[in-house]
């Protein structure tokens, strides 16, 4: 039912009282029990060293912490800090137009919001961070999400909702200033390009030399096209039926991949990274200019349902399989900073490697995009903003567990760049044994055979996660299907990433057209083909180039680019949190400013330290310019430094490292500009007590709806009364 303006009774609707007063003895008992479970799990994790620890301790430590944080901290933010006001109409109610602005059921909007924020990021970061042990990642994912990530998502959603769904860039420009706004616009665009390039790199690394993977992922394109045509011409609107057909075809494509060798397709589907890069760039361009109904929309349906399905399956699988952690709690790489997966010590590099899942700036773009225009009641932003991010954090914890339950020798054989393993089983075994871990060639060969896939130096996180998921699912649901589950997991990740690449390219295209449109209005018309094609090509060229840089880097693309990606994402979070602090001060909420200011301070400390080290460190493993210098000096002396194999690769290293260093420095500078601009406003706001903001004046709400996942008895009663009264009014009005 849509609530149209004509059917509304006049006057504000009475809102159910949210204040339940004191907690009942039963609810006190329940929360004490949850707290006890959490305390026990955390104690076990903190005290266990060397003995075998079940992964379920991590799972339940996470779940109980989330429950407590949601029940108490998010409620505190909702009531005391933001003072969410259900008597106030949301933009969805005031501006309802049946398309952008639309009152949406809270649980449905939660699903949409979650599908938009959760992708491959929370799956990849924790896998890479597992090189430091399971404990640092676990602590950061859980503490980070509670005090930083979920707070950012919820507050940005709130601020945008109070401003009719304005975007992050718009809010920065209007509330901080033109300088900050322009810097934010450039930063958002550049950061998006890096994110797309790194995500594409993950797919390339997972599919290179993997005919099975190429076959099944390749088939997702015709499957999506078929679904698009089916929905457009044969059965318009039957989304569930179409998605069901799509999922069946998808599973067949995964099974079929196992027969590519038998069918004699093995050779032609064994593609190099370079070929895959060209294919992906070409695909990205075509996908972004095709009508959305052909490819993007149907694949989005597939990826949304796969996402929800796999997350549920993974949670069930973990409980059934009860795997034991093979990883150490904290490894020496955390303190020494010489890990092969990525360089640098726990501080600051853990906090930029695990971005999504703990704190992700990209979410601020979603929370200030479609979601705020669809919220029915203000109080619902707690479950959508805070709750949605907790759910993403849970995905990250599952990924960390999956990476920590596989044999750690195997973990490093998969994740060390080809430059150090030589890409061979013997080379990998030698390298891993050199790290002080035991791994035999037989073990590695057996693992390779079990998933029917080469595993040595399959960097990027996706193969590791797929191997972990395959291990867990084989244990939980019976053996014999390890290879199927491995490719199922690869499919699951590639599907997200391809959707993100399509949608990201298109969003980038709109941003570019909008910006150029300020100078040349015609270019801003999104339906004008030449402008659309030209800007799509520009966006694809940008991320395609960075992808190529990553693919051809002799030092290993993930090793080189992932820190750039992580820092970029966290710098975006710094921009979002800076906006939150600015608006708190402008509203005069000085008393509560620590809510966004503490995470902002922590985020700035970690990302600026990481940026500083990436730019200025004289350790060539960490500093991009030190690295370029080292290879330049060697090249000029006529030497070739491993892992480069010839002088031209030496040139590549010098060039790539310089590009990465320049990008890194520019991102950090842009954020410093925004924070400096904001600091001026902070001082002015503190002196004045408060400053006017662009918040839209309150309009009384005529809607009644529950606030949380489960409606309380009182809410149900209030909704029923309101609906009865509404029907009466409509009846008498006609």
């Amino acid at each position, binding site marked *: 039912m849509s609530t149209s303006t004509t059917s509304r009774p006049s006057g504000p609707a009475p809102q159910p009282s949210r204040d339940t007063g004191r907690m009942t003895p039963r609810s006190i008992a329940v929360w004490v029990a949850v707290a006890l479970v959490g305390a026990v799990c955390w104690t076990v994790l903190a005290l266990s060293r060397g003995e075998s620890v079940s992964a379920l301790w991590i799972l339940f430590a996470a779940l109980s912490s989330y429950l407590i944080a949601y029940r108490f901290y998010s409620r505190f933010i909702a009531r005391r800090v933001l003072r969410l006001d259900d008597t106030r109409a949301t933009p969805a109610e005031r501006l309802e137009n049946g398309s952008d602005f639309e009152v949406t*059921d809270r649980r449905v909007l939660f699903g949409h919001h979650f599908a938009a924020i959760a992708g491959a990021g929370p799956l990849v970061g924790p896998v890479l961070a597992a090189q430091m042990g399971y404990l640092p990642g676990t602590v950061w994912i859980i503490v980070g999400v509670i005090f930083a990530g979920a707070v950012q998502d919820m507050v940005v959603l709130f601020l945008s909702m109070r401003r009719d769904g304005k975007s992050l860039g718009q809010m920065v420009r209007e509330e901080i200033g033109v300088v900050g706004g322009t810097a934010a616009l450039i930063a958002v665009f550049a950061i998006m390009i890096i994110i797309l390039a790194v995500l594409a790199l993950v797919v390339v690394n997972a599919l290179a030399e993997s005919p099975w993977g190429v076959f099944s992922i390749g088939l997702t394109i015709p499957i999506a096209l078929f679904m698009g045509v089916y929905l457009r011409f044969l059965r318009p609107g*039957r989304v569930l039926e179409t998605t069901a057909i799509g999922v069946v075809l998808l599973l067949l494509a995964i099974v079929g991949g196992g027969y590519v060798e038998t069918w004699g397709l093995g050779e032609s589907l064994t593609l190099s990274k370079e070929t895959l890069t060209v294919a992906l760039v070409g695909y990205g361009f075509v996908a972004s200019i095709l009508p959305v109904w052909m490819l993007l929309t149907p694949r989005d349906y597939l990826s949304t349902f796969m996402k929800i399905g796999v997350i549920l399956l993974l949670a069930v699988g973990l409980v059934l399989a009860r795997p034991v952690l093979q990883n150490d709690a904290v490894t020496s790489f955390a303190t020494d900073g010489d890990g092969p997966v990525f360089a640098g010590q726990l501080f600051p590099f853990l906090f930029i490697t695990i971005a999504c899942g703990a704190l992700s700036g990209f979410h601020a773009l979603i929370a200030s995009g479609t979601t705020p225009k669809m919220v029915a009641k203000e109080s619902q932003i707690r479950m959508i903003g805070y709750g949605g991010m907790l759910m993403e954090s849970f995905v990250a914890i599952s990924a960390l567990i999956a990476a920590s339950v596989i044999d750690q020798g195997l973990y490093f054989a998969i994740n060390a760049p080809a430059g150090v393993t030589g890409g061979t089983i013997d080379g990998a075994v030698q390298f891993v044994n050199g790290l002080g871990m035991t791994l035999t060639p037989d073990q590695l060969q057996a693992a390779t055979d079990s998933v029917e896939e080469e595993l040595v130096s399959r960097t990027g996180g996706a193969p590791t996660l797929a191997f972990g998921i395959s291990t867990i699912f084989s244990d939980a649901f019976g053996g014999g299907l390890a290879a199927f589950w491995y490719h199922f997991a690869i499919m699951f990740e590639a599907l997200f990433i391809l959707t993100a690449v399509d949608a990201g390219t298109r969003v980038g295209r709109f941003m570019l057209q909008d910006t150029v449109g300020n100078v040349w209005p015609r270019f801003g018309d999104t339906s004008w083909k030449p402008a659309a094609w030209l800007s799509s090509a520009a966006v694809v060229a940008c991320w395609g180039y960075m992808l190529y840089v990553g693919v051809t880097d002799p030092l290993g693309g993930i090793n080189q680019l992932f820190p750039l990606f992580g820092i970029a994402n966290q710098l975006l979070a710094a921009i979002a949190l800076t906006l939150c602090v600015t608006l708190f001060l402008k509203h005069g909420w000085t008393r509560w400013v620590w809510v966004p200011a503490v995470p902002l301070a922590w985020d700035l400390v970690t990302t600026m330290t990481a940026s500083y080290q990436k730019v200025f460190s004289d350790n060539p493993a960490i500093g991009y310019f030190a690295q370029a210098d080292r290879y330049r000096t060697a090249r000029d002396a006529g030497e070739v430094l491993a892992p480069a194999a010839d002088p031209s690769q030496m040139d590549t290293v010098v060039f790539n490292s310089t590009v990465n260093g320049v990008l890194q420095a520019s991102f950090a500078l842009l954020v410093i500009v925004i924070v400096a601009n904001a600091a001026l406003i902070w001082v002015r706001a503190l002196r004045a007590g408060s400053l006017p903001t662009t918040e839209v004046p309150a309009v009384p709400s005529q809607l009644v709806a529950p606030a949380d996942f489960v409606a309380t008895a009182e809410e*149900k009663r209030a909704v029923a009364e309101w609906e009865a009264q509404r029907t009466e009014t409509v009846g008498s009005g006609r």
Partner: protein
Amino acid sequence: MSATGRPAADQRPGAVRRALAGVRWYARELSGEGRWDAYLARCEREGTEPMSRRAFERHRDDHRESSTQGRCC
């Protein structure tokens, strides 16, 4: 789509049936399939003639064309 909670699809008791109806409702709403029913209900309420399903879905496709939402990492 209703802001007021899902309509009781099945009035008879039976936890399994109610759960299944709930899952079906959620899937339809999440995928947007339920939008057509909402549209028909509104047309009936307002006494207007609904457009064909094909035209309705075309209209939604056109809207999506210009309002792509970014997918996060």
